[in-house]
């Protein structure tokens, strides 16, 4: 019986996945298996499912390892599991962790296996019960046997399996080299396991302990003693100030009505009925504490946005957790909570990204680390990360890795997998096709083996678990790099284990709105109250959204959304346009833009324009009427499953939920069968069922429910209002908060198109962040690369306290900046306004003189830097040229290329044209056939335009595509719904005088 096995959840040690491990154990004829991942139970909940599906009884355990001691702990009882979690938490959280002492304190319900003589001696003095000497091939077995005999402690044989076959040892070594940040040659023996740590069958293991039959018999005895009927179904709610259930509910009721009067003024009958209906469900499900806790958290910040299905609740709305009126926008509470729903829905709240740490701090201070912990993100080696890390082990420099990864991302799909091809030959073939030399084929080959391997714990963007008693009895807790306690499970396992989480997430757009509102107050004295501000009826904002001028606006700024908005409104017949609600359509549009739903968008626009359409099936006529017969929201999955597939509401909701999970193949298969059978029984024809199931599958991975989109659309409207009425303050806030869909350069370009003037940084005018007022935006010191934030803030504080700087000398006297930092400021032109007759090189000389130890005489005044040199400085410091458009650098070359400006594209519909463009953003997608293609957004000095590079063209030009490069683009101008796009036929990288542009791509944009 295998009592000591490691899966890929032993971080950077164990090789096999849970599925492969369980299959291998089952193939050896075993009926029980213990999973003992190193210092954790990272995959425990998934292991229980997988083991049971494979027909194995699961034992939960761990291999506890500290610097000087080790032991395998197996949970014999549920109490033992709680003690296991406590011990592991101590291992990760206590600086002075003592393995021997901690295990001794928490050994109730645990079976202990170890070959550590010191530890065994101490533990055996207290009790010999459930204590075994572990004998494994590859470890000092002779000493262990001698010890076992001397102390008369029973032996037990284990494999300490880190991999399934001895051939996998190389994969293990590679994992260790990645973890240890070293190379294979430098990996020392104590940094990795030994080659005998494979999952050897019992017969093989018996050969290592020929004279100790007990060692194998004991494995069976222990397996029989250990608990295997694990059940984590009970939901564990947080507790609000330790109130009783009744008291908590009464508190919630009174707070809700108080909030209703604040929201509605007078509580109408409709509102009252809705509140009562919701409160009844909340009381029955025991959710009152949860609402009160979230309410308390939300009150810590003045600007929040409730996301997810909780926005469908009037109770949330009245408490101020969400800000969208569910009655006005027809949002169904049942999507959030219904009597039949078994799993606990969570409430997600967005806070301005820079305020979130304070909120978390408040939660942990208020509830204490005994009750609260963050949910983890289990970081795995995704394809790119696996390639990158293995390449590092092979000593490939970062720049070469970057180039190769770019090639893999863009072109690896082009190498077809032929029948009979091995992974090795495939890797060789791919590398040959991409021109990648040794050792890349080897790197690619190993990356396939390491893909999705659990690497380390990260923090979920905002998930917090609160329990009424002690969190460490449910799951081990670690301390994250940022100092927060974090549980060992990611959100799916957390939820499956019955723990309810609250998502406290960071949102940059809330910070954009906050900063813009503050700037407006500063510049104009006007105060806009965030809570009561309703931009939905503002005509200018509605018009801006209809035009798709939403760059910088939360949630609706991507090229795809902007294009869809333009298509939707540009050609909408006037009678429809007159009655169509911009907000309602924005809610639909923002839900419709998801990776798998591209095919439905154009049909949606046609239907929105009044084109007649046939419903896929009459049973769906009513269900999808609101969205013109197209499935848009997550709840549509539930509705369609119920109406067509004969699902119960609970099953429909489960199907909706399973679609968004990672490990869903098996469950999805069951639901598919159920759907096909149900629809078939209702007389629906097979092709129709196929089509509808395909629509359901388009919700996999990334989709939204209506309440969520409505809640977000409200923030979008607020952003759009600011863009329409206060463009300078808005653009400054967008760039300052970073992290939008586009680069800082692209936003500033958009600002210029909006009529704003971009001013350079100035030592007496710039703040750390960008500042906007009237028609100007001043670049903030934050844009100067490598300038330290604390220095920049010191500069601003000193200026505000003691007045403007009068000269470089005055600045150096007052701020004491390091020479390197002061150089950055000089090159960025920050001193130009106070330099007088001194040029930037002359300022440099005076800077060196100020830092010299001996007195100096005459200092020359060198002429100003050349235009080219200034440009190079701007590119290095800001990431983009300041005084001109990047395409101006190619003016001479462009003059010889016949082309049209981007603003004239609409005049050439149906014709082939050539345009010049600076690539702003790109999105690579796969066609239905799995061929890669790309949507790109470019701009010239006259405007922004979108283009599509379809697979055949993409194959030829993909190696040329990268953001922040100049291109000559030739293609066909096409118009659809009055929106003009370009279908690329030819693409050329624009160069100066026959040479490629001499600077690196200017900012990395995450696509």
């Amino acid at each position, binding site marked *: 019986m295998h009592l000591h096995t490691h899966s890929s959840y032993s971080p950077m040690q164990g090789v096999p996945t849970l599925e492969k491990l369980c299959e291998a154990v089952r193939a050896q004829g075993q009926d029980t298996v213990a999973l003992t991942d190193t210092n954790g139970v990272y995959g425990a909940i998934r292991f229980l499912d997988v083991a049971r599906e494979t027909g194995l009884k699961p034992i939960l355990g761990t291999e506890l390892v500290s610097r000087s001691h080790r032991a395998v702990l197996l949970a014999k009882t549920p109490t033992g599991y709680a003690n296991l979690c406590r011990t592991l938490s101590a291992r990760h959280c206590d600086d002075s962790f003592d393995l021997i002492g901690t295990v001794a304190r928490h050994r109730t319900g645990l079976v202990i296996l170890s070959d550590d003589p010191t530890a065994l001696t101490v533990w055996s003095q207290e009790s010999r019960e459930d204590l075994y000497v572990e004998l494994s091939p590859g470890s000092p077995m002779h000493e262990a046997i001698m010890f076992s005999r001397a102390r008369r402690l029973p032996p037990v044989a284990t494999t300490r399996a880190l991999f399934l076959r001895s051939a996998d040892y190389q994969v293990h070594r590679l994992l260790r080299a990645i973890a240890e*940040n*070293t*190379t294979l*040659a*430098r990996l020392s023996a104590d940094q990795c396991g030994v080659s005998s740590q494979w999952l050897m069958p019992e017969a093989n293991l018996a050969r290592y302990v020929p004279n100790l039959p007990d060692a194998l018999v004991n494995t069976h005895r222990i397996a029989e003693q250990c608990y295997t009927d694990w059940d984590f179904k009970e939901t564990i709610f947080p507790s609000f100030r330790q109130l009783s259930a009744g008291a908590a509910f009464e508190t919630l009721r009174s707070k809700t009505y108080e909030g209703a009067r604040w929201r509605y003024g007078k509580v109408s009958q409709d509102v009252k009925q809705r509140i009562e209906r919701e409160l009844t469900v909340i009381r029955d499900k025991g959710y009152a504490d949860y609402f009160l806790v979230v309410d308390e958290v939300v009150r810590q910040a003045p600007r929040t946005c409730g996301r997810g299905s909780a926005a469908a609740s009037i109770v949330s709305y009245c408490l101020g957790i969400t800000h969208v009126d569910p009655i006005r926008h027809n949002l169904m509470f049942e999507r959030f909570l219904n009597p039949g729903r078994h799993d606990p829905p969570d409430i997600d709240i967005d806070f301005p990204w820079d305020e979130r740490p304070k909120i978390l701090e408040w939660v942990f201070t208020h509830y204490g680390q005994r009750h609260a912990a963050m949910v983890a993100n289990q970081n795995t080696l995704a394809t790119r990360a696996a390639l990158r890390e293995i390449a*590092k*082990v*092979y*000593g*490939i*420099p*970062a*720049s*070469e890795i970057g180039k190769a990864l770019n090639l893999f991302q863009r072109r690896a799909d082009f190498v077809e997998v032929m029948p009979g091809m091995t992974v090795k030959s495939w890797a060789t073939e791919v590398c040959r096709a991409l021109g990648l*030399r*040794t*050792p890349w084929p080897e790197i690619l080959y190993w990356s396939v083996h390491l893909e999705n391997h659990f690497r380390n714990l990260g923090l979920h963007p905002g998930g917090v678990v609160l329990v009424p008693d002690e969190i460490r009895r449910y799951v081990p807790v670690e301390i994250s790099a940022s100092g927060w306690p974090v549980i060992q499970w990611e959100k799916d396992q957390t939820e499956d284990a019955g723990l309810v989480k609250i998502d406290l997430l960071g949102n940059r757009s809330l910070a954009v709105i906050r900063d813009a509102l503050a700037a407006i107050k500063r510049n104009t004295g006007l105060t806009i109250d965030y809570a009561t501000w309703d931009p939905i009826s503002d005509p200018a904002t509605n018009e801006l959204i209809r035009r798709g001028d939403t760059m910088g606006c939360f949630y609706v700024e991507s090229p795809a959304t902007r294009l869809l908005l333009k298509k939707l409104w540009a050609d909408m017949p006037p009678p429809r346009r007159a009655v169509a609600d911009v907000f309602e359509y924005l809610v639909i549009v923002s839900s419709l833009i998801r990776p798998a739903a591209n095919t439905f968008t154009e049909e949606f626009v046609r239907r929105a324009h009044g084109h007649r359409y046939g419903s896929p099936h009459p049973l769906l006529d009513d269900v999808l009427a609101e969205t013109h017969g197209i499935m848009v929201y997550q709840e549509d999955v539930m509705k369609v499953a119920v109406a067509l597939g004969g699902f119960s509401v609970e099953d429909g909701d489960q199907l909706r939920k399973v679609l968004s999970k990672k490990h869903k193949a098996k469950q999805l298969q069951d639901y598919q069968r159920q759907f096909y059978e149900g629809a078939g029984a209702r007389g629906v024809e097979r092709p129709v069922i196929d089509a509808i199931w395909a629509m359901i599958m388009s919700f996999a991975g990334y989709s939204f429910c209506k309440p969520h989109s409505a809640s977000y659309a409200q923030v979008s409207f607020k952003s759009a209002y600011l863009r329409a009425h206060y463009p300078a303050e808005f653009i400054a806030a967008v760039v300052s908060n970073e992290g939008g869909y586009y680069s800082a350069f692209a936003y500033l370009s958009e600002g210029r198109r909006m009529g704003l003037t971009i001013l350079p940084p100035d030592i007496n005018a710039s703040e750390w962040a960008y500042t906007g007022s009237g028609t100007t935006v001043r670049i903030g010191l934050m844009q100067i690369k490598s300038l330290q934030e604390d220095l920049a803030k010191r500069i601003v504080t000193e200026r505000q306290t003691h007045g403007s700087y009068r000269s470089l000398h005055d600045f150096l006297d007052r701020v004491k900046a390091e020479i390197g930092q002061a*150089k950055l400021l000089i*090159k960025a032109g920050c001193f130009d306004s106070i330099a007088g007759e001194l*040029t*930037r*090189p002359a300022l*440099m*000389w005076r800077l*060196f*003189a100020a830092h*010299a130890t001996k007195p*100096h*005489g*005459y*200092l*020359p005044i*060198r*002429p*100003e*830097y050349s235009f080219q*040199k200034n440009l190079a400085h701007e590119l290095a410091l800001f990431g983009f040229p300041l005084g001109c458009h990047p395409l101006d650098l190619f003016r001479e070359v462009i003059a010889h290329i016949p082309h049209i400006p981007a603003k004239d594209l609409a005049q050439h519909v149906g014709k082939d044209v050539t345009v010049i463009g600076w690539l702003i953003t790109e999105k690579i997608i796969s066609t239905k056939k799995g061929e890669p293609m790309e949507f790109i957004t470019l701009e010239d000095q006259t405007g922004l335009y979108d283009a599509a590079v379809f697979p055949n063209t993409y194959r030829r030009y993909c190696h040329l595509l990268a953001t922040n490069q100049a291109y000559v683009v030739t293609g066909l101008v096409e118009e659809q719904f009055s929106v003009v796009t370009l279908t690329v036929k030819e693409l050329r990288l624009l160069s100066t005088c*026959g040479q490629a542009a001499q600077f690196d791509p200017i900012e990395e944009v995450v696509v």
Partner: protein
Amino acid sequence: MDRQIVCFAIPSFEVAVARLNDPTLRTRPLAIAPLNTSRALLREVSPEAEDEGLSVGMSLEHARRVCPSLHVLSPNPYRVHTADQSLLSVVTCYAPVWEPAQSGSFTMDVTGTGRLFGSACDVAAKVQREVLERYQLDGVAGVGSNKLVAQIAATLIEPSELYDVRPGSEQVFMSPLSVRTLPGLHRPCMRKVLERLDDLNLCTLGEVAESPLAALELAFGNYAGQLSRWAQGIDHLPVLPPAIQPRLEEAVLLEPDEIDDPLLKGRLLDMLQRLCRTLRSQRRVCGNLSLTIRYSDQLEVAKRECVRPETCWECDLSPVVVSLFQRCVRRRIRLRAMTLTMTGLTAHVEQVPLFDERPVDEQRRQDRAKKLAVALDTLHARFGDHAIRYGRSH
């Protein structure tokens, strides 16, 4: 007495030598690059290839795309060595002291030879003419009052031309040249100097020369003096004949780039063995050992260690080499090249200590190692470097 220095060089020497051997190559774009490696860089290019947009240092792969008609030859060290010797036979007729700069390039100190051969300018012209007549190699010649000026002058002209910088006009000559013309500024260790020159907008040597030394010192510290002197065309370094060259160097270019420590150490010890053999043949000992490594991403790291007492034996120097390797190789990046340099070279003193304080075992071990080294020297001299090599036992 004013010094008279001549720098004579054959531009693109390997190309020129190759064309001598195969006249059909004379009119077509030609480049020299190693052909046994996939990531070779061009070592030399012909003027025709330059016209097609090729330059030294460009990757062979890229060069072939830019110029499909390019003819590429692999370096031929034997042929180059023979041609070098031929040039030398002319140079030594005129110069009492000469220093090889690189293949096909010599710096000659002809100070005081006026009565024998005429002025330095005449000597340069004679060497140029003689080399052309005897070997059909068309050279350039720079004449000046020091090595720096003569060498820079030789780089500014076309074959058959001669650039004579008259004494006293060095500063005028240097003034319009870019600061990047100065030797050594392209080295990684000089990056900071280049950066500061750029900060101060000092683009030409004239601009440097005009700047007060005290002001330069603020930016360049101790290096300011040499920078200022060089910018004015002042260089006191003597022309050094090879016999008293103060250093011995062995370099290895790894193909492909390598990160396997045992293999790299093996290559280093091979290099050490060759250097020690040269030392022993010159009856010299080494007092300093330095290792320079270049990573795949072109970053260079150099470390140096003193060797006391000075020695010429591998058994004494191997631990130093291993220690240098460990100090140099700290990053997890493959190595592209390694250079082992011996400096502090002095004559070998035969006298051994009268009372050797080393333990007897140690003495025996070292004696055995030395005997083995001498035996290996003999074998290598007779059968070549690869006839017998050190291995490693596990």
